[in-house]
């Protein structure tokens, strides 16, 4: 590296600083904290978190219902369809209602097939794209890695969603998910992508939880700050 780095110096200071152990005082002095119950060597892991985070039922139907409830609160449009054909019809309906003229997608089944069926000009991001062209699209149709019932989130990666920008630049993001992709919580979602990719991780992963939003003006919720104003999730099967 051409520019001088200071890691030796910083690491030496860290090691020196850590020679004196810090007291364990988990949870501060407040009355409800009490003595810590876990040991230093093994801080709590994802299995333990499940008992404290918001509860999720074990059955798929419960998880779909919780996802739907969360999506509604987040103002995301969640629909369950029985078949790919129905998904195609739902997409055609969205296209009509919103007056789409151009859509963007990526070459992956079943996403690409569904997008092409719309009969609109269709931009594929796979071989590279011009940012301005993607920006001009009315909707992006992508796949995903998982749906998370606990939070109503969609987990995408560069690989499952056609790159980094496709799922954030166009004003309407439509996610096509399959039944097997519903997971109970964030920990399971992270474990599932670990299983799929490690050690060859995609350079980008994101949990998308509802359409883009801001509360920066008087803490009043506005949808569509910089990312999509609309998020539709079609769960097939």
């Amino acid at each position, binding site marked *: 590296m051409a*520019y001088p780095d200071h890691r030796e110096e910083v690491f030496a200071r860290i090691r020196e600083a850590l020679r004196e152990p810090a*007291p364990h005082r988990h949870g501060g002095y407040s009355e409800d904290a009490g003595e810590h119950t876990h040991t230093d060597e093994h801080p709590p892991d994802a299995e333990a978190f499940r008992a404290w985070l918001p509860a999720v039922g074990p059955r798929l139907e419960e998880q779909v219902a919780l996802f739907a409830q969360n999506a509604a609160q987040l103002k995301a449009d969640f629909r369950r369809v029985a078949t790919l054909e129905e998904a195609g019809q739902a997409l055609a309906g969205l296209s009509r209602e919103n007056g789409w003229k151009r859509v963007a997608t990526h070459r992956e089944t079943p996403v690409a097939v569904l997008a092409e069926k719309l009969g609109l000009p269709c931009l594929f991001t796979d071989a590279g794209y011009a940012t301005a062209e993607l920006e001009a699209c009315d909707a992006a149709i992508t796949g995903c890695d998982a749906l998370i019932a606990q939070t109503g989130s969609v987990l995408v990666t560069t690989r499952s969603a056609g790159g980094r920008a496709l799922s*954030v630049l166009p004003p309407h993001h439509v996610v096509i998910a399959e039944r097997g992709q519903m997971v109970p919580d964030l920990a399971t979602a992270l474990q599932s992508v670990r299983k799929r990719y490690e050690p060859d991780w995609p*350079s980008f992963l994101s*949990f998308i939880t509802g359409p883009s939003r801001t509360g920066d*003006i008087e803490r009043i919720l506005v949808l569509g700050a910089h990312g999509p104003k609309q998020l539709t999730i079609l769960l097939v099967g």
Partner: protein
Amino acid sequence: MITFAKDFKRAAARVTADLRHRGLIQRALKSYEVKRDEFKGRYQNWSEARQAAAEIKWDAINHLDRYLAEFIAKLEARGTRVHVASTGEQARDYIVQVAKENAVRTIIKSKSMTAEEVELNEALEHAGCTVFESDLGEYIVQLRHEKPYHLVFPAMHLTRDEISDLFQKELGSEPTNSPEELTMIARRVMRQNYCRADMGISGANFAVAETGMISITENEGNARLTTALPKIHVAILGIEKILPKLEDLALFLPMLATAGAGQPLTCYNSLFGGPRQPGEVDGPEQFHVVLLDNRRTELLADAEQRDSLHCIRCGACLNVCPIFKNVGGHSYGTTYQGPIGSVITPHLRGLQNWKHLSAASSLCGACTEACPVGIDLHHHLLHNRRNAMKEKPLWWEKIAYAGFVFLMRRPLLYRISGKLGSIFFPLHKLVNGGPLDPLISWTKTREFPPLAKQSFQEYWKAKGKKEAPHGLS
């Protein structure tokens, strides 16, 4: 020096007297509180979750050398350029250098308090770059040439009308009192900037050691666009952002959102593990991660206060602090406001210059109660007070306490001075609250309580004469 304390007092006095301003802040924070409690209520056990978060951060910070080395090795293995900076100046210089080497003109930036801490924008502008803050709140304060008001809500002190006026003046937009329209104005401006920027700069909320990834939490999508479109991405973060394992995020992401913004999870929680990899369709060609010390190792060396490095910058302690609510974010004069700012600023910028912030506290402990990682904030304020006094005692306090001790040890003298006090006290009325009042720093804003007519000893004696004490019959 003393001017920091003076500036703070002056600004605090002004904001405290501004009822409109205080009303604005309190209304905004009230709605946050309602939402936060609603979503905290969904946890099966918030206090256990909080304790787990404290333990994980304890592990991370107390093995920082190991985890940081792992984080750096993992990032570098996938083509990320990691720069460790000892000081803010070194971090700035490195980023300016990257900008120069790549002939960068336009920079799009997502919110980063660490960048604020090292005054990165000023350095880049000085080097001839144009920097656009893309987060709506940050963009608003940037247009006003102001510092962020709050760690998480930078423009919470402004009304929609003030923002409309600002946009009218700076961007030539039509006046509007709709937050939605104002947001869309900023959206349109920023869309052009994402597409033409040569470099994107972001902060990070977490650094995952095990997989070598940074995690960015946001609601607007501006950080995603900042990190997707420009050909260079630079992330700047403090060395304390470390989390050991990827799955730790399953706890920290929801807790950050609930404690910080009253949300179950923020809209986008994104992980970045490198520049564009072979076979990927987009993303930056260069990914730089700048790890900043800037005296964090001094805080680390203080075992007693080390847990203040557990902070995840959620802002929950500001939101509940009665001092913050009344003096406002700008009065602090620091990058990090509120209780956490009062705790760490003396370490980062000098104890004697910033000790006054630790005195600006009612020690009510609301901050400690609110902290999702269990930092013992209000006790740290006391530690700062003690340390400041130990390091540089005030001569008049020493004399006053020596006098007090002298008196307390001599009962006769104590009684006499008590008597003298009650004789002369009525004279205080003559000067009460005026320029000659020796108690002016109290009586300026408060009533001085009247002295008791009897001392406790006298009362006890008199009482003993009237009625026999209740014995054990």
